[in-house]
């Protein structure tokens, strides 16, 4: 055990996890913004915007994340000239963030939309019946309930994003799964303990967020 701990201390596990958390943070913000725009397009009464939003979601949701990440690194940057930074590592980090954002935006959109779908039509009818115009009805009656209904699916998307941040390994962003591979190759005697260590790290990050999401979504649930 103490030997294994000595092995562990040779590697910067925390630094690698920190990279996953950074990827998650930036991609989470960006996908929330893109997802909100997509959700607004899809719930608007305007057919052309609905069509564009639906097409985006159906195409991206059915594409493997790995393809999108590889596309960012092999096409977006070298072929189409999208460059976030002249520093190689920084550039790849942001390319990975871009790919993660594009992919998870479609799930954020669907999470928000399913939140709107939890609001019964009677709520909107009641708001109109007491004379509220469109914007006040949306602001005071519908969106507050829609947001509460969207907490659980948005939380699930966030958890998926944390785990999917490891896919940045496809373009050599030195996050935890790349470090794990390197450790396993160097320290062949400790393959299983290394896996358990990395896995428990994810359990420690993911399970509290899952519990918090469940707690919040139940606490804030609109009782019907």
């Amino acid at each position: 055990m103490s030997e294994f701990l000595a092995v562990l201390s040779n590697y910067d596990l925390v630094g690698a996890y920190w990279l996953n958390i950074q990827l998650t943070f930036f991609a989470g913000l960006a996908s929330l913004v893109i997802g909100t725009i997509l959700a607004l397009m899809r719930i608007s009464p305007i057919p052309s915007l609905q069509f564009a939003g639906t097409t985006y979601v159906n195409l991206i949701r059915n594409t493997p994340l790995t393809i999108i990440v590889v596309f960012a690194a092999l096409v977006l940057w070298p072929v189409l000239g999208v460059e976030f930074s002249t520093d190689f590592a920084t550039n790849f980090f942001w390319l990975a963030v871009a790919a993660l954002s594009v992919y998870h935006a479609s799930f954020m959109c669907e999470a928000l939309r399913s939140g709107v779908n939890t609001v019964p039509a009677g709520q909107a009818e009641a708001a109109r019946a007491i004379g509220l115009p469109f914007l006040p009805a949306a602001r005071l009656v519908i969106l507050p309930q829609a947001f509460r209904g969207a907490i659980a699916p948005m939380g699930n998307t966030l958890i998926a994003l944390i785990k999917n941040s490891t896919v940045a390994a496809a373009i050599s962003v030195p996050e935890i799964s790349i470090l794990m591979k390197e450790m396993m190759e160097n320290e062949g005697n400790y393959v299983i303990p290394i896996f358990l260590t990395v896995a428990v790290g994810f359990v420690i990050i993911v399970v509290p967020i899952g519990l918090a999401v469940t707690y919040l979504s139940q606490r804030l649930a609109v009782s019907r």
Partner: protein
Amino acid sequence: MSRQTVLFDAPGPRARRNVRVGNWIGAVVVIGIAVFVMVQLNAAGQLRPELWAVVVDPDSWRYNFLPGLQNTLVAAAYSIVTAVVFGLLFGVGRLASNRALRWFCGVVVEFFRAVPVLVMMVAGYQILGRFTAVSGTAQLLLGVVIALTLYNGAVIAELVRSGVYGLPKGQREAGLAIGMTRGQSIRSIELPQALIAMLPSLVSQFVVILKDTALGYIIVYPELLRSARLLGSGAPFAILQSLFVAALIFIVLNYLLSKVAELVARKVGGRTSGKARANPAPPNAVTVPAVGGSGT
């Protein structure tokens, strides 16, 4: 296209005019973005016919796309079978009356749902290399299948459990009322209905499995994405085009699978007292909270 009615009242003449105007503005913006993308692609020389000729060349399909697709489908097929078995075993285990067994199955399921598929894939591949004689493509394939089985099996186990919990209470009470034990009622009344109710979600989970075989790219399993990349790495460097085709193949397959899920949902709806519905393809890692079925 799903019409949302909750936010909007039935439009009057003025609202209809606004929608029409908005529709044109929206169409112009969307087409503008498409034109901009095409202009950029053209400027980068990516619309040249010789690049697109690469991906319609029969040889590209014979030596790259089809063998890659075959490996993808093989990995997906094995993973689907093993994940369903794993999921049924542990899902039923979580419903067992034996407390130790229930607890054990719960810990296993929660553990594998929390660990990224890629981490399990890399670890599975390395562990196989260290402790078994398996090597080469078999080792890569097994690495992919093990990871997909553990993660998706855990998700399927949750489907089984939430399927049973999602049944109306009266089903269990009716079983108990005619003198069945809790176990008998689970086995002969609740599980059969729960399994039928979960069929659509199960098919949706197959979409996740198919998509996640692409993670095999990272451990260099020769699946579709890997073979598309190889094709694009040689002259004349049609990398955009070959990745585009690989993505298109995935999109078509997954779209068909999700249509199957919807079809199944319609077919089995009347055969169970549970809620049979097709979830849209979830992101490849969903933690469904304890409140059944709300995860998407």
